[in-house]
């Protein structure tokens, strides 16, 4: 089958499936850790209180002051411009064009990875936010008043971002099906369309409001940024306990959909070449037999399965939430649903690391050598690195396996810790809180073991 998700078009290499013995070890450790967590759980919430320590005023001014904001914003706009220009004017070869690697590897994978450690690093570089704020400032200077905005429909919450997330992954993974490759030009046009849409929404609802709710990249990267150790408050940089900021993330409606979409899309990308390849092909053949074009059939079939992945992940989470509702003293179903959404962020991160860590390590070598020196693939050599290649020996297959399994196990533990902590908020009785966590534990074990399973299934 001519199945060409973007990672294929960019990278010459794929990961080997995790061997059975490592799968067994991973699953066993997950179980042991889980029971240990139940037994050794603390009795009062630890992450829910704020534990911030402000950093020096000079450092805050240097990193967060207006000059820094302008420099970062300009850099973000410049890089987006370079990517779009390279996509439109550069080579059609996906792996030789700056645009695809920059957008789908450096940014789409890099921001989640670094945000999860450092905090929300995308916000200062967000090109649309920068343009929106500059436009707002310009408007104020000319009109003498702040621009007026529509009230954002509260019930919509982060649903636009969740849907946008599915759309981005659709472009990345499903568009390039049936012999069609995602060309740099297509990605550049998509980026332009998205820019127009985002700026229009910012004009309608306000820059910060839209970044917090609807702007896909702000919401998605910001979600991982909640795990990181640096934050800002009142223009002051602060250090915080890792993961503690995640507790306040899911207060906006639709947040659960964002984290579920993240887990589901990564699962789909991993499973579409292994676990669910046969069903995808079966549906594809039905559709093709029904007279739909081959490319359209394959895309439709894959879209259907991506949505099924979303539904399946949502179902597992909902079952866990419904289970918790049966514990005496439980808050309402909707409170629980929103209340535990943030506990899935570490799982989503673990999935990302497990599936894309090696692609990131290898493809960033291309990004910082030949794609930087020859962004259009025209034979230029701006920085003298155009002749360099990717060294596939920088990390061994064993290292990749250990990182994959370790990320799932660590994500699992972090998820359990956040869930246990949240349960202590809802159930003041420690015993009931623990009883409620049998359910979340089952949810987490299901996700983690499924993640391990995806890694161990032979792909191709």
């Amino acid at each position, binding site marked *: 089958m001519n199945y060409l998700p973007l990672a294929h078009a960019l990278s*010459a*290499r794929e*990961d080997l499936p995790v061997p059975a013995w490592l799968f067994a070890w991973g699953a066993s450790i997950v179980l042991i850790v889980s029971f240990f967590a139940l037994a050794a759980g603390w009795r009062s919430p630890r992450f829910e209180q704020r534990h911030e320590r402000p950093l020096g005023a000079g450092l805050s001014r240097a990193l967060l002051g207006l000059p820094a904001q302008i420099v970062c914003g300009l850099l973000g706009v410049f890089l987006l411009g370079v990517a779009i220009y390279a996509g439109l004017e550069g080579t059609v070869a996906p792996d030789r064009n700056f645009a695809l690697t920059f957008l789908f590897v450096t940014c789409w994978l890099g921001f989640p990875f670094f945000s999860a450690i450092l905090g929300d690093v995308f916000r200062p570089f967000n090109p649309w936010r920068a343009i929106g704020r500059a436009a707002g400032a310009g408007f104020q200077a000319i009109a003498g008043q702040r621009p007026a905005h529509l009230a954002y429909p509260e019930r919509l919450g982060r649903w636009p971002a969740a849907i946008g997330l599915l759309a981005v992954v659709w472009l990345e993974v499903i568009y390039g099906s049936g012999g069609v490759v995602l060309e740099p030009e297509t990605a550049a046009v998509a980026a332009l369309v998205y820019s127009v849409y985002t700026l229009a929404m910012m004009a309608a609802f306000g820059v910060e409001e839209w970044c917090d709710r609807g702007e896909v990249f702000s919401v998605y990267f910001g979600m991982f940024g909640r795990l990181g150790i640096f934050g800002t408050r009142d223009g002051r940089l602060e250090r915080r306990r890792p993961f503690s900021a995640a507790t306040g993330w899911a207060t906006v409606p639709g947040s659960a959909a964002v984290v579920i979409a993240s887990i589901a899309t990564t699962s789909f990308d991993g499973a579409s070449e292994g676990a669910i390849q046969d069903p995808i092909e079966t549906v594809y053949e039905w559709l093709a037999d029904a007279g739909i074009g081959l490319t359209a059939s394959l895309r439709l079939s894959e879209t259907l399965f991506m949505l099924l992945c979303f539904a399946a992940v949502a179902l597992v989470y909902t079952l866990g939430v419904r289970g918790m509702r049966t514990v005496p003293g439980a808050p309402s179903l909707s409170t629980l649903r929103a209340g535990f959404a943030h506990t899935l962020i570490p799982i989503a991160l673990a999935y990302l690391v497990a599936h894309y860590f090696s692609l990131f390590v290898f493809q960033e070598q291309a990004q910082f050598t030949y794609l930087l020196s020859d962004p259009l693939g025209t034979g230029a050599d701006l920085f003298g690195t155009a002749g360099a290649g990717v060294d596939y020996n920088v990390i061994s297959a064993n290292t990749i396996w250990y990182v994959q399994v370790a990320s799932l196990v660590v994500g699992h533990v972090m998820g359990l810790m956040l869930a246990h902590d949240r349960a202590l908020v809802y159930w003041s009785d420690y015993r009931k809180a623990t009883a409620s966590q*049998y359910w979340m534990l089952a949810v987490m074990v299901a996700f983690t073991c499924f993640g391990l*399973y995806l890694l161990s299934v*032979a792909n191709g």
Partner: protein
Amino acid sequence: MKDVRKLTVALFVLVAAVALVACGGGDDSTTGTAGEESQAVRGKFAAVADAPAAASKVTGEAELERTNGGTTVSISVSGLEPKTPYIAHLHTGGCGQAEPGGPHFQFQKGGSEEPPNEIHLRFTSDAAGEGEATASSKREVPPGEAGSVVLHVDESHHEMTSYGAHESETVFVHEGVDHSKEGKGHEGEPQHAHSDKIACAELEGMAATEDDPQAAGDVPTIVVRDGEPVDGIAELEYSAGDEIRFRVTSDAAEEIHVHGYDLAKDVPAGGTVEFAFPADLEGIYEAELEQLGIQIAELRVNP
């Protein structure tokens, strides 16, 4: 504490189930193309590796059909020398082998080297350099044993006698055969008499090669026809430090590119190239037809 016990059981069941699914999924590694319902196997003729230059113009098709316990082989070839006698034999091996086709197919192995124990197709090309022949046998060629059909100039033509198992189109005595092409073999010894191999049409040769790696000298051969690997994407597995060695035979000129290792070799139309390099990068890498962008092999290098 009852709850805990229940949960323990539930979790072990869950993990066991996941493990089972994983193990079950593990051997699902076939990447073959959709199965053909028909019993007919077809292959296109392409010049063999060391054929004379004129052979590069040879095109045509061979078809092998198994019906009701019998076998019919028919060929249709063009681009030949005009008015020249030719003979084709059914072989057990693939076209990519060092000796294209390997040994003749025989119903009774080690038996007679003539029909009806073997399948021979004799014909003489017409003025336009085209020709057709059909041979039938009342016995069925076992699946996988019909490797290929190999075409020769029929040097033994003038000694030809009538064989029951084939129909020859024309009986035509042609004295002006260019004997300069004849390198080896002596007339009267059938195996060697027609050793001037011109072209080969792959039928089930790759399958036979996989079953019996000895036949191909332990080197897997990927046969490309019409821009696709005839047996689907070949899965080749190695351990780090091994030598990766495989051959590619193509009916059209192409560039074969091994990604990751970033090695490329040109294969001429109807020719074969061999890759041999150390497996020093771990992971899964693709080999593809560079111009068409079609994957032909997946190289797995385990640590």
